[in-house]
């Protein structure tokens, strides 16, 4: 059984690398946090990994546009290595800022614009999973938080058509458990066609705005206190984990 190795990028304001590494390791992988400058200095290091993860955060403070400056840095120093990586049978996941970086790199189509509120928003959303991707296999719905200022997915007609044709929309915002519970509108940012996540390269590259690593423990859920009471009275044991972990498990499972 192969234990896949995951590289979680860091530096310049990315900030979810520790919990992303934790999630991958909980799912059974071996993960390393590697600073972009260390990788640029030792480019061949990328070859050691089966999964590339660009975590959430605020690279360069979203200055000049979210994900742009970090993507430029990757292009300037690691273009060839990254191209090679994505064309092999390996997996890539970009979460939140990571998704923004992947679109700016051109690895995923479309763009992420400022939210319709023009304000940073942190709240829970419900996702209906779709498409064909090793990352989302077997997951039908997922609730997780978003936390971003620029998460409104945009694509032109051509891109939309190709997303549809290739079954590449991985998740859309829907009114589900959390929106019902907290009485919130399903689409948190005005995303086109309610798109929350997309894939490319036969589903091997996943970009998603919501944070699955913030939905991996039961106690991260906004209504866990309610369920604690309900389940406690019914004599049901409280679960330890939540659905977000499945994304990471899927990543690991792909190599098993």
């Amino acid at each position, binding site marked *: 059984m192969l234990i896949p190795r995951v590289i979680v990028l860091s530096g310049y304001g990315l900030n*979810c690398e520790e919990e992303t590494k934790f999630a991958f390791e909980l799912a059974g992988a071996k993960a390393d946090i590697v600073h972009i400058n260390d990788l640029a200095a030792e480019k061949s290091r990328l070859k050691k990994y089966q999964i590339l993860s660009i975590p959430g955060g605020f690279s360069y403070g979203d200055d000049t546009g979210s994900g742009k400056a970090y993507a430029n840095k990757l292009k300037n120093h690691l273009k060839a290595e990254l191209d090679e990586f994505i064309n092999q049978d390996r997996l890539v996941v970009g979460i939140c800022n990571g998704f923004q970086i992947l679109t700016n790199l051109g690895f995923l189509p479309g763009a992420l614009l400022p939210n319709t509120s023009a304000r940073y928003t*942190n709240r829970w959303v419900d996702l209906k999973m779709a498409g064909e991707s090793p990352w989302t296999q077997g997951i039908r719905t997922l609730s997780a938080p978003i936390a971003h200022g620029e998460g409104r997915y945009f694509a032109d007609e051509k891109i939309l058509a190709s997303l549809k044709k290739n079954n590449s929309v991985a998740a859309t915002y829907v009114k589900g458990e959390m929106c019902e519970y907290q*009485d919130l509108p399903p689409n948190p940012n005005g995303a086109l066609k309610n798109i929350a996540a997309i894939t490319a390269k036969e589903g091997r590259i996943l970009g998603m705005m919501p944070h699955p690593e913030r939905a991996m423990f039961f106690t991260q859920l906004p209504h866990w206190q309610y369920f604690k009471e309900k389940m406690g009275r019914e004599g049901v044991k409280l679960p330890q984990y939540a659905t977000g972990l499945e994304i990471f498990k899927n990543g690991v499972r792909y190599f098993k």
Partner: protein
Amino acid sequence: MPARIDIKYKVPDTRAAVKLRHLESIGFNGNVKSVDLVDSYIIDANLTSSQLQAVARLLENPLVERATVNQNQAPAKFDWAIEVGYLPGVTDNIGSTAKETIEDFLGKKFKSGQGTYSSQVFFLSGKLSEEDARRVADTLYNPLIQRAEIKSFKQFKKDGGMGISAPKVALVSSVSVGTVNLDVDDSELTCIGKEGIANPDGSRRGPLALDLDSMKTIREYFRGQKRKPTDIELESLAQTWSEHCKHTIFANPIDEIKDGIYRSYIKAATNVIRKKKGRRDFCVSVFTDNSGAIAFDDKHLVTHKVETHNAPSMLDPFGGAITGILGVNRDTVGFGLGAKPVANVYGFCFACPEPRRGADPRDPFDSTQGRPEPGRTGDKSVFYRDAERKEKILSARRIMEGVIQGVNVGGNCSGIPTPQGFMLFDKRYRGKPLVFAGTVGLIPRTVAGKPSHKKQAKPGDYIVMVGGRVGQDGIHGATFSSEAIDSGSPATAVQIGDPITQKKLSDAIVKEARDKKLYNSITDNGAGGLSCSVAEMARESNGCEVALDKVPLKYPGLAPWQIWISESQERMTLAVPKNKWAALHSLLEKRGVEATVIGRFTSSGKCAVNYRGKKIMDLDLGFLHDGWPRRHLATKETHPYKLEFVGMSAAETESRDLSLAIKNMLARPNIASYEFLSMQYDHEVQAGSVLKPLQGKGRVNGDASAVRPLLDSKKAIVLSSGAAPSYSEIDSYKMAACAIDTAIRSAVAAGADPDYIALLDNFCWCSSNEPERLYQLKRAAQACYDYAVAYETPFISGKDSMFNDFKGYDEDGKPVKISVPPTLLISAIGVVPDAEKTVSLDAKCPGDLVYALGNTYDEMAGSEYASLIDDKKHSNILQNVRMSFCDSLVPCVDAAKNRKLYRAFSKCVREGIVASAISVSKGGLAVALCKTAMGGKLGFDVSLKKLPGKFSNDTTALFSESQGRIIATVAPENMRKFEKLMTGTSFAKIGSVVKQEKIVIRRKKKNMKLPLPEILAAYKSTFANY
């Protein structure tokens, strides 16, 4: 020749749409038809046109944006163009990122003097006069940090755009070092202390905030040295001796208290408690470091520190607040050998910009009359810093929005969750807002086998400055915040934070360099800049020698004294052993963090500074740190202070419409939902969120929150706070007692163990040179001692800010002084063994029993209900405070009784039999019941008949703010167990949770019925458009 790159969205720009809506909401309704937005960069780096084209491609996302070089992208038709950019020298993060991107692409650094500068151009269409355009511009920029240029359509066309000029810093100040003659008469000596050292042209350099006594002490010292002080020596002493740094008011003897307030009341309480707790003592590092620390588990400590950043936030709300939060983050990174920030907290005290319902139309703070003037919202008050009425202070709304945005950017960009905070409104915060920012940190107990909370710079260690560069920003910050704000307040006192530079620094330190043991000591560069951080660390080795010309600068032309005291942000100072320097330097370089050796620590007993080969400062460390003259402070009893009691007495309220009153109370800014704020602060990053800021189905703001700082541990930290400034003028002793009780109670209600809670104190006082104010201070500090000891909750850290007064002029040019009410923020931090045992505030299941714990009394003075009544009457900020319920009392805290109740309740929590709990605070029982019901979207059927305590009528039962009370819901099957565990405390079952969305309150007279949707609407209405 600089070039200009303009970037415009090809798709609709939501930022412009939101700006248009905002302009409408603040009074430009209908006048502005459209807003277009262009982002601009001035690139001053001698690039070829093909290089510029390549740079334009780097800065655009071609799918949605278009970038042009030296070709404007103005819409075909518009009426006014307004460009907003930064003033020379002000931190421009976007410009810096663009510069870094370009440098990385070209593979070479810009030359000195070259740069990239960002700006935004707003194109407005609509029926707008030039005056209107100016008003719009006023809402878009802050003249202290930004520049705005307005061009009409015609002018814009004529000029071919907004122009291309780089806002470069051009300093002409003298970089030489002068000496200062102190052998002058008392009035000149006083003048030097107050207004600063005289420049050759007769102008003054800005406040030293040294009083005559201090100036004379300094003169004596230099007479002994047989020389005159240099300017840098005097500036340095002023920084170190400032109220901001030495806390002289807390340190000086006061009345009969020889050791001063801090040692006798705050520190003494902790000492007594630690002794009493003995083996149960959880304190590890108190008062000595940048933060305080308690034990988290066998392997880790948690640290906590809360700072204030009031004066800068008044001048530049965004810059002040972001600097505040980033500054306190550095107090975490600067704790021991470096703790990792794991949670932020905040507290904002503002004058409310919202009109108050049913208020007197003559009140200048309300806009219920007619249409507000464009650009001005609910709060119509106008004040100026100067007699000529040229420097207007920002509107209440601008201050509020700027401060909120500052913590938003600071916290979110740093990847630190911000789960806990509050807003508190009182018109007495109109002159100076209070901005509290705090950070909790986590650090292993040992680093490389040694206790992590101990650090010592050794003689011979390099003094290393890491992080940002030094500019003119933040000069005289420490001395300026030690005084009241007036027209002499320096504009250079404002800084803007750069969260990414700090994030790089913080990560490199706490995630890498610390565990490699690459330095012996570390501290934050905060108030006073290098002059304070280096001099402070020099105490560890007993001396330092600095080469000031080694300090990297943002731009040339800074005088040595400016370099020494500048408060340019994102810097820390390290003591690095010689043999570790190469490793540290190489690590930091790889992380994009600048690090420079600027001298070495010595054992000479001196703080010495050299510049261009000359010794320009040579002070005895002992004199620098302890030479300040002690002054015996005297207080004057006052009780209550400057109050005029009017209005009705408690007994007169019986006949009022209580249902309406409850709805009005829920809509009051001090009670209303502020979810717009909670939702824009990332509270879930780091993945340890347990108890969130918004709780239950109804998304109700909680008074406490909990996070797990270690993902592989079940342990959680519970955070809460308490402040009761509305009681201060009546009885500051009771005010402090209430703040402590509220902080503890809110933590306990959320599941904290009352025997494992530590406190932090933040005193934000006013006019602390007045004996009456000092009396209030002394009484409040006495309460801190009495109640901390009674609850056995030690203080671990604190900070004070003693002059929160605004001295300026009103609209007619009459002098005014607006002082904040004496405000004490108590922050509580508790550690719980099992995160799953924490309790949220929302009712969970129909049929659950509702318990009221603790006694209710007629304690209405200073209550939110009293303010509701007072707001209906004319009351002016400049007059004395008026308060209703003169025959009532401020809540009195019975610590012994409460402690017993909290401990019993905590047992119930540990047994897992509490379904929901909320502490009864502002707005009393009525508000607590409503929050629990709204949280669960369930109804209540409760009766006031059995409510424990002694009160005159239903009004006081519902709205009294008696302390020590908790509302809890419990499953019926747990009733006996709960009541058994609570035996010996004052509690009563007052009703049950019901499925119908309605709160029924049964009373002797007519029962009250409150439909849940109505109260929820009231609760969420106030800040719905924020």
